[in-house]
């Protein structure tokens, strides 16, 4: 500390001045947090912030999705072990930490405890499976997880146990996360196809890809969202039943994000030396095999940090749907503030919303560094 902050009179003065500034700025913040702020608004609206108007009698489905998430986390730790130890200890601690939130109901606490238990039990049990199939199961679980929870959360028209919960009732953090997950899961493969299309030797495919990418990159996301919400219905033939508004937002986000994924993947493709294509072809691999076995794995690994950066941006951009009237985390916050009971609590609500966005963004960025470290094995 002495060497970093006080090595010479100039640095000592700078350190003291900065310290004084920090204290000067932190004091009002700290005193606001502990004395000035009306925190009652957060516990009172906690359920709204978390899940919007998702019906209380179906909330067990959200918990079920979280149990499954815990199981996937336990399986992942069992599969990838040491390299992700630090991350997984923190991940496992999350439900326990959340139990400390003073305003949570007893049911929520029990459910969090079950989550923790599920994670630990999966971790312990799956370690009995031999390593290779264990890793395979973990990969499959990761891929299947997101479509599966979307089905669970949405439910089915015909089902009595799991009746349909229309997406107009999805809200809060739940909606923000679903928009992001759908955006990432669907835009990425579409982006890979567009990137390949842009490199295609067939002029028609190449031109269509270029036009699509450049058009989408040339307009802001909010304009696509407005087009989806306001104008789409005007273009459809008269009498077409209105399309679900959340679905329209999802499609806009997917289409938007795909163009950016495409450019990032293209950067990865261009970083692969020509010799890799030549070696693959010289061995007799077909174009498809060279792409899927040799080129894409390397290209995508090379751009993981960029892609994760893009996905973090996408997660935060989903807050734009609040402007077209959907009740995501930000939209719910705005509607809470519109309630006369909670007048004047903007600071409290927005600080908490920002904190929630930060926690998720930071978690993603941390996870990307782990993946990077794990996939760079054997490179120079």
């Amino acid at each position, binding site marked *: 500390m002495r060497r970093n902050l006080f090595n010479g009179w100039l640095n000592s003065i700078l350190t003291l001045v900065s310290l004084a500034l920090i204290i000067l700025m932190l004091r009002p913040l700290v005193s606001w947090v502990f004395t000035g702020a009306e925190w009652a608004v957060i516990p009172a609206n906690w359920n709204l912030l978390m899940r919007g108007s998702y019906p209380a009698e179906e909330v067990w489905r959200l918990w079920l999705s979280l149990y499954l998430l815990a199981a996937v986390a336990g399986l992942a730790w069992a599969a990838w072990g040491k390299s992700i130890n630090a991350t997984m200890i923190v991940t496992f601690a999350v439900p326990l930490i959340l139990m400390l939130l003073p305003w949570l109901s007893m049911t929520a606490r029990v459910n969090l405890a079950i989550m923790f238990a599920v994670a630990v039990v999966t971790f312990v049990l799956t370690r009995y499976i031999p390593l290779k199939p264990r890793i395979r199961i973990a990969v499959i679980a990761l891929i299947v997880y997101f479509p599966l929870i979307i089905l669970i959360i949405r439910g089915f028209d015909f089902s009595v146990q799991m009746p349909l919960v229309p997406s107009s009732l999805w809200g809060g953090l739940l909606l923000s996360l679903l928009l992001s997950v759908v955006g990432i899961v669907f835009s990425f493969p579409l982006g890979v196809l567009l990137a390949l299309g842009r490199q295609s030797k067939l002029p028609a495919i190449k031109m269509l890809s270029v036009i699509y990418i450049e058009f989408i990159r040339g307009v802001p996301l909010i304009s696509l969202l407005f087009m989806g919400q306001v104008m789409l219905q005007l273009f459809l033939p008269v009498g077409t039943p209105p399309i679900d508004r959340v679905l329209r937002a999802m499609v806009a986000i997917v289409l938007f994000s795909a163009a950016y994924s495409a450019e990032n993947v293209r950067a990865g493709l261009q970083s692969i030396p020509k010799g*890799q294509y030549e070696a693959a*072809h010289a061995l007799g*691999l077909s174009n498809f095999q060279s792409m899927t076995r040799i080129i894409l794995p390397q290209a995508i690994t090379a751009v993981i940090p960029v892609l994760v950066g893009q996905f973090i941006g996408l997660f935060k951009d989903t807050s734009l749907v609040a402007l077209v009237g959907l009740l995501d985390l930000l939209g719910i916050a705005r509607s809470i503030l519109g309630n006369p009971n909670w007048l004047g609590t903007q600071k409290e609500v927005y600080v908490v919303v920002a904190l929630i966005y930060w926690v998720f963004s930071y978690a993603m960025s941390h996870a990307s560094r782990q993946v990077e470290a794990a996939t760079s094995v*054997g*490179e120079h």
Partner: protein
Amino acid sequence: MSENQMANQASNEPIIVCRDVHKWYGNFHVLHGIDLDVGTGEVIVIAGPSGSGKSTFIRCINRLEEHQKGDIIVDGIELTHDVRNIEAIRRETGMVFQQFNLFPHLTVMQNITLAPIQVRKKKKQEAEERAMQLLERVGIPEQAEKYPGQLSGGQQQRVAIARALAMEPKIMLFDEPTSALDPEMIKEVLDVMIELAESGITMLVVTHEMGFARAVANRVCMFDEGVIVEEADPETFFLHPKHERTKLFLSQIL
């Protein structure tokens, strides 16, 4: 062509036939009509100054480069735009590159077994057994589970040779296999190539290693400005070169 010559050709049937092969890069005429027959089991060294088209020529044989005029027939299959023909020829020819071009995201073992499993549809276990035999043949069985980035240049090039051999090709093409190596590693690669040449596989080798040419080549071809200016057995080539260009080239590199 006399009857005698025809009979001679039939007995040692050429596995590669090149007739009047031309190639242009845009306006630049790289290959000016190459004629070359390669007999089964023959080892041919292709020498010549850089820019003479020798690399381009052997890269035409497995269609990494496209020739615009003339015929190339490999193992009875004519090289045309037909993808099936191209893939068939590539299955019969292995290639070793100057820059090794191993797949950095795969282990040595996966590098070698990928094509046999994907292209030849071999069983994984069978492919891995064969890969271990090949790694023993090139002298590095202990490196099987490492990644290419963890090996020296000479070891990488030997893996590349094993990878090409795993497809059990009838022909091996070498494109300056030792040019990117540190001097002390050249020998370990050349030893593998000499052993390979003696095993009877057909080889086309673009190289500046004249020691290799003397030791195992059946013929040496001298390329200059896109034509074969001289073609002879190594003894004649090195001791009694006819063409001025060859004499100059030999005086520069020997």
